[in-house]
């Protein structure tokens, strides 16, 4: 099976309101999958169901080989997650953050030590291991948060608006990192508001009021809607 995420008719209902209304899609292994939508379109709700935090009302979804209804705990172990706040502990040092998050994913002390060394080297911050995260520049903090989300080598990593509030150069660097990880076989599931970032994705889905209105490669989408950029595609769809 080549699909690492398989979603069929997934629905989340609050009273009469369908936050997510029968969405279906697949994500292939090693793919960078862009999950777009305006605020309130339901993408956060959909993502919460996929990462095992929220229980769907109906439908089927399989993530990393586990069913979201039956095995949300196993899903949690096989995915990585990074939120828009690059949430790390500011009052802990870089090393302590790595140790803590490695620890809650059940890595042994020995593995954590190796990982820490490799990670600091990779980010070229070998001398910052004992620095408090709060005093790091935002760009480094973001890369660190991403690396920590990957510390237990998950098959998929979910990124919830990972580039909010970051300058264009840092954003560019961050996407290079995402590409690198995708090449190594990690599936990337990313939500974003930046339409130029949507162009970097292998495939893109666009949600409008709880439904997936479009799903294809950026190139195809632009052809279908006869426009030059993803921005215009998005505007056309979101305005209905």
């Amino acid at each position, binding site marked *: 099976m080549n699909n690492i995420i398989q979603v069929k008719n997934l629905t989340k209902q609050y009273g009469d309101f369908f936050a997510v209304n029968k969405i279906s899609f697949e994500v292939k292994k090693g793919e960078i999958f862009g999950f777009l939508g305006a605020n309130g379109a339901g993408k956060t709700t959909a993502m919460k169901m996929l*990462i*095992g*935090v*929220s*229980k769907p009302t109906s439908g089927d979804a399989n993530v990393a080989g586990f069913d979201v209804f039956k095995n949300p*705990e196993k899903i*949690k*172990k096989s*995915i990585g*997650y*990074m*939120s*828009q*706040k690059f*949430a*790390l*502990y*500011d*009052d*802990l040092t870089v090393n*302590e953050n790595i*140790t*803590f*998050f490695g*620890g*809650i*994913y*059940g890595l042994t002390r020995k593995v954590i030590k190796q990982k820490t060394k490799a990670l600091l080297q990779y980010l070229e911050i070998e001398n910052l291991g004992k620095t408090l995260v709060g005093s790091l520049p935002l760009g480094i903090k973001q890369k660190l948060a991403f690396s920590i989300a990957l510390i237990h080598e998950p098959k998929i990593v979910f990124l919830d608006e990972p580039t909010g509030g970051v300058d264009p150069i840092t954003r560019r660097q961050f996407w290079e990192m995402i590409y690198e990880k995708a090449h190594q076989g990690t599936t990337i599931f990313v939500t974003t508001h930046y339409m130029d970032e949507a162009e970097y994705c292998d495939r893109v889905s666009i949600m409008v009021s709880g439904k997936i209105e479009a799903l294809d490669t950026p190139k195809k989408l632009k052809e279908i809607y006869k426009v030059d950029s993803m921005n215009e595609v998005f505007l056309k769809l979101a305005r209905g």
Partner: protein
Amino acid sequence: MKRFKGFIKKEFYHIFRDKRSLFILFGMPIVQIMLFGFAITNEINNVNIAIFDKAKDEKSQEFIQNITASNYFDVKQLIYNQKDIEKSFKKGHIKAVLVFEPDFAKNLIKEDKANIQVITDATEPNTAITIVNYISTMLKKLQININKNTAIPYQIKPTTRLLYNPELKSVFMFVPGVMTVILMLVSAMMTSISITKEKELGTMEILLVSPLKPFQVILGKVFPYIFLSIINAIAILLLGYFVFGVPIVGSYILLALETILFILSALSLGVLISTISSTQQTAMMISLMGLLLPVIILSGFIFPIASMPLPMQVASKIVPATWFNIILKNIMLKGVGFKYFWKETLILLGMTVFFIALSIKKYKIRLE
């Protein structure tokens, strides 16, 4: 288990690296005990008074001497005419004036009754009443002395004994009270703040997406505060004992168990607050207004519950601290056994279970 250990370690890093929480944890108990122990007392000592002695005879002098000899009053001023009485009050350094009528001794001996007027500054009502009481007691003693030789046929002589706190030290009341306040502060406020902090920073999201179960996350957040609260309780008791001589007459084990029960109820309140507030500020305001204020005002710590109006008395019954205060006094000062406060314990236990159940329910709703 290893995950849990890592989590606790992280919590301690948070606590020990934040000066503000360090102060609340370790500075506050000491400051509060010292404040309540030394500054805020119901006893009076060296109160400045003035005397307007119109009699200037043997008996009035004897009484004035009695007063000067006590530690309670300092005679700061002698007044010689009526107008000066109010003047000296207005200056503000005199709390009371004693006025002896002319022919004090003569009236006392010949007419069998003499008058002393006690005028007090009632801008501080409690002090005023205490002063009046002290002076009346001294007068009674003087009377008994005078009557020693003459036989009065029917005499009722009250013998009073002040049980459990013979010297009427107010610190005996404040140490258990401060302990309740501090435990509430540390357990409920600090936990609710530390949980909402994770929400605000977005790390709570990361933790909930991780393989940690929600109850493990909460337990990990709460556990360090159980530990710190116990240390605090011990520190307060030691301070009370060594600095103010407040004894622990009853069983240490009972005291420890009841304290842990109260800590648990406070912690569950803290978790409950964190589920309904999304920022640290909200959590702090709710803790201060909703918990700390009732603990100080309604728990019987400062104001006696029996003299509150009925609605307040009812309100005081739903404050867990009220029950813990009763239990504490029973164990620490009276030294009685469990059968004298099992009802209070049961109520506290019931409240704790209720709060825990409610916060679990609220927490689950939030997760959905």
